[in-house]
């Protein structure tokens, strides 16, 4: 499935530090980090290892299957933000 970062994310980046597949963006070294509203997980890369959920100091990450109804929309939002990033990377590589 995937894990999802939800709205009360404060951009702490403890999750970025522990992710073994670098699927959380933007990382502090990536463009857009300073102005990002929240961090997001790329669902195509996530391996569901739970490390980010354990690391988040405010429990703002959970597996998609555990999303409560009022936060479910964040799954699509993480996916859309990730897609936007992939798009941008492809365009700049082209």
């Amino acid at each position, binding site marked *: 499935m995937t894990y999802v970062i939800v709205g009360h994310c*404060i*951009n*702490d980046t403890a999750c970025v530090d522990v992710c073994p597949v670098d699927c959380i963006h933007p990382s502090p070294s990536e463009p857009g980090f300073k102005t990002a*509203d929240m961090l997001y997980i790329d669902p195509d890369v996530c391996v569901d290892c739970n490390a980010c959920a354990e690391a988040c100091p*405010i*429990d703002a990450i959970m597996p998609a299957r555990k999303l409560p109804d009022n936060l479910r*929309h964040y799954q699509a939002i993480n996916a*859309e933000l990730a*897609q*936007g990033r992939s798009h941008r990377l492809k365009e700049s590589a082209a």
Partner: protein
Amino acid sequence: MNAPSLRVAIIGSGPSGLYAADELLKAHSGAQVDMFDRLATPGGLARFGVSPDHHQRRKIIDIYERQLFASGRFRFFGNVEIGRDISHSELSAHYHGIIYSSGASADRMLNIPGEDLNGAVAATNFVAWYNGHPDHHRDQYDLRGERAVLIGNGNVALDVARMLLLPTAYLSKTDISEIALNALAKSEIKEVVIVGRRGPAQAAFTLPELLELKHLDIDIELQGICDEELNKLIAEASSRVESALRLRTLQELAKQPKRHARKLIFRFMHSPLALLGENKVSAIQLGINTLSHDGSKALATSETTALDTQLVIKAIGYRGRALPELPFDAERGILPNEAGRVSSGVYVTGWLKRGPQGVIGSNKMCSKETVASVLKDCSQGDLKQAIDETDIATRLSKANINYIDIKAWRQINKTECAAGLQVGKPRKKLLSHEELMQAAQPADAVAGR
């Protein structure tokens, strides 16, 4: 590991101070950190800025403070004000370095006529009031009008709007100040207008704050922009997904059916020109703007309009204040610094270093940079070699300063949480300095014994 000791004082226990302490303790195995705060409670804006209905974010204080304490090389001294209880130079004598992380709590001025009328309020104060800041528990706000006007297109305005518009029953389950809750229960405000100089594409509201409006019992209206223009902006945003999402969310909010008792209006493209009234605000005069071609500037037109209101809250940002014995950049409201170094042995982090912007987590990288500067100076031998080895705790006790140590704070914490548990809140905050000091009393909680 043969590391020489490095004693550092950190002034201010908000997120930037907590991150700095964490980074320092991790990076240097001999580092010892003493953290000071003017207030009895740690957390800074995480306790007094983050809004009550965003309670999950406050957890960062618990985690970091717990971790710092668990290192065994960290102490907290609450209720100690540098400048009042002990001066900067007196404190410095005991430490190899001092890091100022005392933030920015003053408000920015609109500099328009009528700004000093009753009913013209700074959000910095209003937020502190509803968050139970002990300096504000005697604040009084007139909530009798039907409309409140908020100036500023950022999350603080949204926070204030929610506090004014959410049902009391909902707010009563948060850690909102009991005094504020009672006042809001008597509020007659039914409409909040958030006024912004520029358009929705330039607004600083963040995506999660906009998204949550979808689930609240508040009607949303957009003014100063039509749907067609909004579609155009969304199309232009396209590859900037976050921007596109924000705009789409605003659009969806406006399209939701109107069925609630209370309303939030986003009025774009308007600037405040003057507050009107005798002694107290009765209306606000607004100028209508257009946008410069690149969107970066609001351009005044000759058109104006006015809104009746008895409460105008400006949420246009915070400002840092000068500190005794330290240099100050009055324009930016910061301590002048290079990568956090003010001078050898004196450092700054957080809003007092880079200005009041960013979210809680933004302070982490900021503090890492500052700590790197501290460590660099340390390894290059630029910090003072000899310090006064007297324990600061002893010195403060001798001066009869009733400091709150971590155990006393946990006692306060326990009291607030237990009281909250009884009424279905995460905590019931103690609102006055006296009550806080009283709660710290039991057992050997108050240090100095």
